[in-house]
């Protein structure tokens, strides 16, 4: 195995271990990191949805973005670029979030759930693999959202990081300038949104993982995609590393509880665990990266990826306001309909964006 492969395997082990430590320090179970859940919490903290149990400005997300940004600046890779079907990507971000909230987690959390013994996550993984395979089918057929171009100004790439820096400022300052409603930020008093590791630790964890993910190009959907497409296992090793890192520490901490039932922040509706991550896998493959990768790319100045991140925030608001999002009780009917519509829309986009 060459150096690069060792590096991504070790990076994965570190990320998995950090995730388990974050749970130990207060994050929700099997949720040391979850890009979708944490962006959903941020959408809640901004008052974009009213699900009181999932509102918090997750410092991990801010750390990830800044970790990737600082690393890419030192590497000379920070460069504002965009213009590849940006609005299409925004809506794809919306649907990627809807799929993730039907399953209850992004692909990264799927791995962490498996490492916690949650068998429902294995069903999710099968759906994810099927979704990626469907995406690869469209890629082979000539799917392409178009070329991005480098911008003559770097301002665009700084906008999303500055927005998240502002949220961090509000979180740390704790100012309330809308006393009647309780805003500007809303925080859960109970439920997953109220469970969090200390702010400084979450932020540093995000920075470290942002650095590692930027350097290794870690991507959950990319790992499966590259294996199907060109039999390359580089990104897959990161996946395996995360699983092992989290599994070992979960066993040490006594978090490992194998089974289908009574898993934390999970449901047992197999078909929707499968289809939720199917939607995420398909969308991520068409977008060129999973939710984690989109966040890291945003930090590097990719404003098309930033549109996906904003789309995911909006998608989270839709998910909770329209009762799409699953809970431990299962997936509401509207969520099932939204998931099917998402799959159909992604199939439509995948089929029609074909370059001759």
């Amino acid at each position, binding site marked *: 195995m060459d150096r690069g492969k060792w590096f991504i395997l070790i990076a994965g082990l570190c990320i998995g271990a950090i995730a388990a430590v974050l749970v130990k320090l207060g994050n929700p179970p099997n949720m040391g990191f979850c890009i979708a859940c944490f962006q959903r919490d941020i959408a809640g903290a901004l008052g974009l949805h009213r699900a009181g149990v999932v509102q918090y400005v997750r410092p991990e997300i801010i750390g990830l973005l800044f970790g990737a940004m600082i690393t890419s600046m030192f590497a000379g890779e920070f*460069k504002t670029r965009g213009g590849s079907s940006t609005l299409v990507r925004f809506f794809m971000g919306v649907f990627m979030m809807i799929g993730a909230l039907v399953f209850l987690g992004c692909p990264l959390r799927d791995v962490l759930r498996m490492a916690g013994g949650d068998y429902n996550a294995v069903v999710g993984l099968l759906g994810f693999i099927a979704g990626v395979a469907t995406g690869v089918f469209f890629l082979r057929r000539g799917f392409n959202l178009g070329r991005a171009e480098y911008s003559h100004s770097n301002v665009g790439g700084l906008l999303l990081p500055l927005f998240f820096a502002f949220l961090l400022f509000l979180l740390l300052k704790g100012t309330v300038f809308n006393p009647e409603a309780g805003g500007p930020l809303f925080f859960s008093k109970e439920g997953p949104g109220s469970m969090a590791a200390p702010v400084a630790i979450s932020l540093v964890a995000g920075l470290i993982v942002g650095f590692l993910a930027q350097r290794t190009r870690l991507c959950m959907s990319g790992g499966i995609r590259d294996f199907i497409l060109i039999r390359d296992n580089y990104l897959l090793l990161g996946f395996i590393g995360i699983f092992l890192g989290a599994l070992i520490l979960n066993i040490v901490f006594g978090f490992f509880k194998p089974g289908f039932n009574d898993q934390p922040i999970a449901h047992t509706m197999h078909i929707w665990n499968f289809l939720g991550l199917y939607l995420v896998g398909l969308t991520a493959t068409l977008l060129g990266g999973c939710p984690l990768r989109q966040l890291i790319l945003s930090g590097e100045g990719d404003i098309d990826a930033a549109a996906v991140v904003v789309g995911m925030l909006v998608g989270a608001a839709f998910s909770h306001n329209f009762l799409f999002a699953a809970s431990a009780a299962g997936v509401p009917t509207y969520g099932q309909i939204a998931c099917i519509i998402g799959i159909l829309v992604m199939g439509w986009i995948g089929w029609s964006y074909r370059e001759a």
Partner: protein
Amino acid sequence: MEKIDVRGLSCPMPVIRTKKAMDQGAQELLVVGTSQVSKENVLKLAASQGYQAELVVNGKDNWEMKLIRQ
């Protein structure tokens, strides 16, 4: 020599296009691209498919490489 332009294309399009040309039996290719990620990925593909890669231009946001089948 066949030229493949993958400038501004996101993953995995640069790899797919290069591989397509390889599968069609190209002995020599000139690949032109922009991002570092696509450069790394095309280099990896070249190594796995038995092509020797020579970077003609190697900038931070533009690169060109010649691929010659061994």
